[in-house]
């Protein structure tokens, strides 16, 4: 059993996420159409596209917050589907940051970050605290550790959410529009933290409209429209004109101002 999984991993050692022919429907609406995509270790992939194009749905399929109905998704060499125990295992290797932060409002900042390590890897509270403080320092918010989420600004909350995801020491980080719910003056503090994370070599999949961030940080840009991946190319190609009509139209709309 363990032998099998290690060999599995070796084969795909540098591919952490792969989608093969994935389809997903919400009732009769097809949200994802024949998605094929792979993300290598250390790669930063930015996913963009108009709203309703399926980019959030796609990223949420990685840790199965949404279930796909056809095709296969592998994360860190394991297929994600059904089996709860295996799914929990996958989710511990995949950190996720949400648009609306989703911190646990009844817990202090520190408790928010220590919860998962304590519950999942059965480490002592002191050890969990140490890990948590390390990551809170990394997102520069350690001095607020004893406050509660509603006492922090949106930007601070999102940074805590990043620390909470990192505390599980994930191999991949997923960001689902991490700056869309933020006031403009707070967007940069979050993007800076994400940029640092990228420069430390974290594998990242980011759904965002922040094209400046994509230019600076991404290795690859995926453009989606109507549930399909329309473009999947290097950042250079995407921003220097190697893009199709729809991507062109989208970019001209969001870069107008």
């Amino acid at each position: 059993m363990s032998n099998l999984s290690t060999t599995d991993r070796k084969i795909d050692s540098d591919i952490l996420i792969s989608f093969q022919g994935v389809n997903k429907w919400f009732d009769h609406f097809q949200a994802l159409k024949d998605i094929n995509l792979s993300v290598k270790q250390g790669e930063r992939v930015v996913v963009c596209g108009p709203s309703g194009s399926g980019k959030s749905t796609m990223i949420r399929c990685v840790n199965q917050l949404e279930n796909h109905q056809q095709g296969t998704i592998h994360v860190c060499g394991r297929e994600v589907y059904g089996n709860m125990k295996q799914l929990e295992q996958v989710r511990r290797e995949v950190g996720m940051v949400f648009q609306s932060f989703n911190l646990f409002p009844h817990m202090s900042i520190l408790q928010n970050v220590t919860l998962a390590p304590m519950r999942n890897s059965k480490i002592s509270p002191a050890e969990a605290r140490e890990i948590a403080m390390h990551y809170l320092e990394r997102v520069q918010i350690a001095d607020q550790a004893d406050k509660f989420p509603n006492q922090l600004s949106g930007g601070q909350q999102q940074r805590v959410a990043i620390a909470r995801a990192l505390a599980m020491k994930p191999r991949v980080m997923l960001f689902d529009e991490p700056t869309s719910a933020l006031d403009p003056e707070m967007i940069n503090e979050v993007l800076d933290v994400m940029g640092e994370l990228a420069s430390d070599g974290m594998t990242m999949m980011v759904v965002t409209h922040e094209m400046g961030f994509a230019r600076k940080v991404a290795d690859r840009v995926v453009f989606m429209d109507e549930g399909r991946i329309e473009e999947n190319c290097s950042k250079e190609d995407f921003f220097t004109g190697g893009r199709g009509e729809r991507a062109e139209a989208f970019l001209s709309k969001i870069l107008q101002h």
Partner: protein
Amino acid sequence: MTKPPLKTRRKLTIVDYICFGLVGAIIAYAIYRVSDVLVYNWNWSRVFNFVLYYDEESSSYVPNLLLLGIATTLRLAFWATIVAATIGLIMGYMRTSKNLAMRMISRCYVELVRNIPPVVFIFIFYFFLSGQLMPVIGLDDLDKNGTFVSSGIFYILFGDPKLFSNFVAGALCLALFEGAYITEIVRAGIQSIQKGQWEAARAVGLSRLNVLRDIIFPQAIRKILPPLAGQFITLIKDSAIVSLISIQELTFLATEVASTTTKVFETWIIVGAMYFILCYSFAATFSHLEKRALRARR
């Protein structure tokens, strides 16, 4: 620093005085009718004797039937609330479950209870419980002279040991009945938790049990405590219906007092006042606690 403007004092207007006057007039008329037209010989002290009576032998006041009745009512409410909350927590979670069978079972339970008159429900369950369940559990053969059973603690918790199986049946009937309402409160509480909380908890890899224990229930319970407290008060009032299956609580004993003394009005007015004082003081306490909790959270 500028000070906030002073609150303007609320003044009574003419409309208020007219309303007060009307209510006063209605009460005065009722008193006039009762004292003048209705030929009735009021005698409060006889009924008061059934609340407290003066024992010549020990020369002290001793609680009598009605006060003992309200103690039983409180015990009933206490135990029924605990059992009902347990039922409600489990059934309420099942109501929100993904599993169809679980949802169907809990839905049937809730609809069954809500669409049958409480009295009928209690009759059905009482005869089932006392006829089938009690002998199986063996409560009828409870050793009345056991050290725990004959102790004071047992009396405080469950009342007279001789009436124990009767008391348990009444408490269970009430609990099954109120459990359906608590189920709906719990369901609403769980459903009021944002989807994002479930997602965030799952995304960090918490197991299903930990998601509920660490994230969902703590938040849901904070939200449902006020309606739960309200349901406890409702339960105190609803407990009057178990008098129909001869549980010796306040209403049951009041019918006895009323028939032995023939002082019907006095008895029921006093009993009404007792229920009112009990329920209102609980309501006031709960709303005080709620306000304090709100302030503390800020």
